[in-house]
């Protein structure tokens, strides 16, 4: 079945949501927002969703959200970074070998640097899987995958998800391990486009998006995002094939 990388990512993220938990994503998070709503429509009807800057948010300001996370009540958070490294660190701040003279700067973000430690699980995702985005070591650590055992922390990264593969975070080793390769790719493909060691396999294949996942995402979730003004323009353009878009 045909599907876009965006649809694949939304579906893979939705599978990480557990029923009954509080799951959240930040601002400018179109793909996680679609994933959260999809999970609630499919396997997690009792999931509490927090999609910042949308109607799916019980809070009006960031202060109660901050303290909800600090108390350890956030089950799952989705975050992205321009670089992700093998230690589960991600970078949302800047690129370049000299931190005092970055070649490019990004918006950064305090929020992720707090939630990465406070949420029980964080899934870090990236829309590009190349050697420049999945690196041995990030140029700037916006949030650290591992910390010494005496550091107060409610949770850790659990997975890294890209359009080509899933990685799981091995807490004991403090390393991302290749977990599964998406349909249409091989272990050699992943080795070729990843900037850190992905092991020698064998590795399983990620279950492809099901007919049901795609249909609900393209029809129910797309409609819901448009009707609630949750990244409506993005949903209109990015979810569904031409037939569903015309509807």
């Amino acid at each position, binding site marked *: 079945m045909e599907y876009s990388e965006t649809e694949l990512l939304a579906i893979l993220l939705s599978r990480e949501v557990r029923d009954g938990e509080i799951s959240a994503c930040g601002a400018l998070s179109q793909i996680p927002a679609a994933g959260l709503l999809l999970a609630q429509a499919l396997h997690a009807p009792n999931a509490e969703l927090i999609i910042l800057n949308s109607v799916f948010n019980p809070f009006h*300001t*960031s202060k109660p959200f901050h303290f909800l996370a600090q108390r350890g009540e956030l089950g799952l958070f989705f975050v992205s970074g321009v670089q992700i490294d093998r230690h589960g660190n991600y970078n949302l701040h800047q690129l370049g070998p000299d931190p005092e003279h970055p070649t490019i700067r990004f918006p950064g973000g305090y929020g992720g640097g*707090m939630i*990465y430690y406070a949420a029980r699980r964080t899934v870090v995702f990236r829309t590009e899987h190349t050697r420049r985005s999945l690196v041995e070591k990030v140029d700037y650590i*916006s*949030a*650290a995958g591992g910390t*010494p055992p005496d*550091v*107060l922390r409610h949770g850790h990264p659990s997975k890294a998800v890209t359009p080509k593969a899933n990685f799981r975070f091995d807490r004991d080793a403090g390393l991302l391990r290749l977990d599964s390769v998406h349909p249409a790719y091989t272990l050699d493909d992943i080795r070729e486009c990843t900037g850190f060691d992905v092991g020698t396999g064998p590795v399983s294949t990620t279950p492809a998006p099901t007919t049901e996942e795609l249909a609900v995402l393209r029809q129910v979730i797309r409609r819901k995002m448009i009707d609630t003004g949750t990244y409506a323009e993005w949903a209109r353009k990015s979810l569904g094939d031409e037939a569903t878009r015309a509807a």
Partner: protein
Amino acid sequence: MGVPYVPIVGLVGTDLLKRRDDMVIAVDPFDGRTKSVVAKALRPDVAIIHAQVADRHGNVSCGYDAEVVILAEASKHVIVTAERIVDRLTEKEAAGAFIPSIHVDAVAHAPFGAHPAGCFGLYGPDKIHMRQYVAASKDDASFAEYLQTYVHGVRDHDDYVERFVPRDWRQPVRAIGQ
């Protein structure tokens, strides 16, 4: 807020922490063992807040929940500019982001005081002006020119509104303000 410091679960091992001398790693004084980040209070000397409505006693309403209440609590002095000044805020107006007068030093009547940004419920951001601002921010020379035009070269707030707030925005909100 404005309390001496707050503990934060997070940020340990980040490069952000290396650049901040107002955030340090501290041991939990109760268990004597666990470490977390402690952030020093930000205590601004002066906060300037634009609001939808304020009253003659210095009570302020932003009309919806907003972070500015924390800012007002933390700051040593608070100056409020408001679209509208009334004798006394109603209970309804005091809902949402309400800043009690105990935090407020001064209130000034400034219709369109948020321009070129927006004021929730009254007017949105001035997108054309915002694009000029972004373009002017590219280098010091163009930004100096921007400041000369919109800040230093303006006689007073009324002069600014007259010259730079889009004409078709004005009449209805002006009427509310009076």
